[in-house]
């Protein structure tokens, strides 16, 4: 009997967005098992790293790690390690403790016990300590938010779950942060941050991750775009010079984090992009788009 290759697409509401997984294979029951495992993996990362859930690792860290070391899941520890390394490499521009500023701007819920004075800024390396046995200590008054990196990590783990179920070709797309693996390339449209009704361009992704960040757009609230959710730790103000960034890298966790760094400091980010063999596209507030020289796709050099 010939083995017909079937293509299956499913979506579930996870990570605060629509998590879509497409796979192809020749065995429907294997595909079903792989999809369930991949969605379960995303749900697990969500449960560990959600800022909003009190019983997540992040919730426990924010509640207890200032008074005693808190033990976290290996995945949470891995994400924190990566976040601290990026913090070091960017001289503090990538900062998972910027949450109080987001809370002040109404972008994250404020907990009842958290009604202190305005945010204080201390270097993150001094506020978050990774201890032996995956235990974490934080300085009092510190709030951790892995929103800038955990979604990419979840996408990576979901792709791993598919591969471990012998899926040879697939795409995991969590609200625009995605990872493609296998012999097929996947066509991805990048939304224009100035006008979400339009796409900026179409690129083909294969064996790589891609993540995008843009200024918040809420058509239900205003015709104009609302404030950015990316805060520059130097000024504590939302980024407004860059309105969108897309990064392609080998891992979605790195791509996800790098989009924030590009938004905050594109010049400084270029070294880091180089270090991670990543390429990027960004859109300036006046609509001008720029790419790194290694960006694959229809680049025009009209400098």
């Amino acid at each position: 009997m010939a083995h017909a290759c079937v293509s299956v697409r499913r979506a579930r509401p996870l990570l605060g967005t629509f998590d879509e997984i497409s796979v192809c294979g020749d065995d429907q029951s294997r595909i079903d098992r792989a999809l369930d495992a991949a969605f379960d993996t995303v749900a697990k990362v969500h449960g560990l790293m959600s800022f909003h859930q009190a019983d997540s690792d992040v919730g426990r860290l924010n509640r207890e790690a200032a008074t005693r070391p808190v033990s976290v899941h290996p995945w949470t520890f891995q994400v924190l390690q990566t976040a601290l390394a990026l913090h070091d490499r960017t001289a503090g521009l990538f900062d998972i403790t910027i949450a109080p500023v987001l809370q002040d701007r109404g972008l994250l819920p404020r907990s009842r016990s958290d009604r202190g004075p305005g945010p204080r800024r201390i270097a993150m390396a001094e506020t978050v300590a990774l201890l032996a046995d995956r235990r974490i200590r934080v300085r009092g008054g510190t709030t951790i938010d892995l929103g800038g990196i955990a979604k990419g990590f979840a996408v990576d783990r979901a792709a791993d779950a598919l591969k471990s179920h012998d899926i040879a070709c697939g795409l995991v797309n969590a609200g625009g942060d995605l990872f493609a693996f296998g012999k097929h390339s996947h066509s991805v449209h990048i939304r224009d941050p100035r006008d979400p009704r339009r796409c900026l361009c179409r690129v083909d992704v294969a064996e790589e991750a891609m993540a995008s960040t843009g200024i918040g757009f809420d058509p239900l609230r205003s015709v104009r775009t609302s404030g950015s959710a990316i805060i520059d730790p130097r000024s504590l103000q939302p980024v407004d010079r860059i309105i969108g960034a897309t990064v392609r890298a080998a891992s979605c966790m790195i791509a996800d984090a790098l989009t924030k760094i590009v938004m905050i400091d594109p010049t400084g980010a270029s070294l880091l992009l180089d270090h991670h063999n990543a390429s990027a596209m960004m859109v300036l507030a006046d609509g001008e788009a720029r790419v790194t020289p290694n960006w694959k796709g229809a680049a025009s050099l009209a400098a």
Partner: protein
Amino acid sequence: MDWIRWTAPAVAVAATAAPAYAVQYLSVADAQKKAFPSATRFVDSGDGHAWKAQAGDKLLGLFVVDRVIGKHLYIDYAVALAPGGQVSRVEILEYRESYGGDVRSPSWLAQFVGKSNSSNLKIGADIRNISGATLSSLHVTEGVKRILAAYGSRVR
């Protein structure tokens, strides 16, 4: 590594307007089977969008289909409730998305009318995957809570 100016090719500009699209992920029947693989029958509870999943006479859980508005258009989704009343699975059945004025035009909406489960509902030409500002699934999450409140006690 320096940044270089990027200009969209003229052909790309013409081809990328209005990313309105729709995807059918699962039919109601397929979603039922996947949520309750051992069920032998699904008994309509009478309101047309909730079914008791049964293996013979044994109650396996409840399967509820609902619809919420996304950005502008409806999202159909299904919730499977376990016998304890807890959510065991939430699956998107059909997703439609569009920004902007074209949604209000009857001719645009007419594209969705009469589509069977097997129809290809992809509207925006070759748009399959979009990267960009994240779309919130908040309305689905709220819908799941409503379903729990309305149906959770029926499976306990």
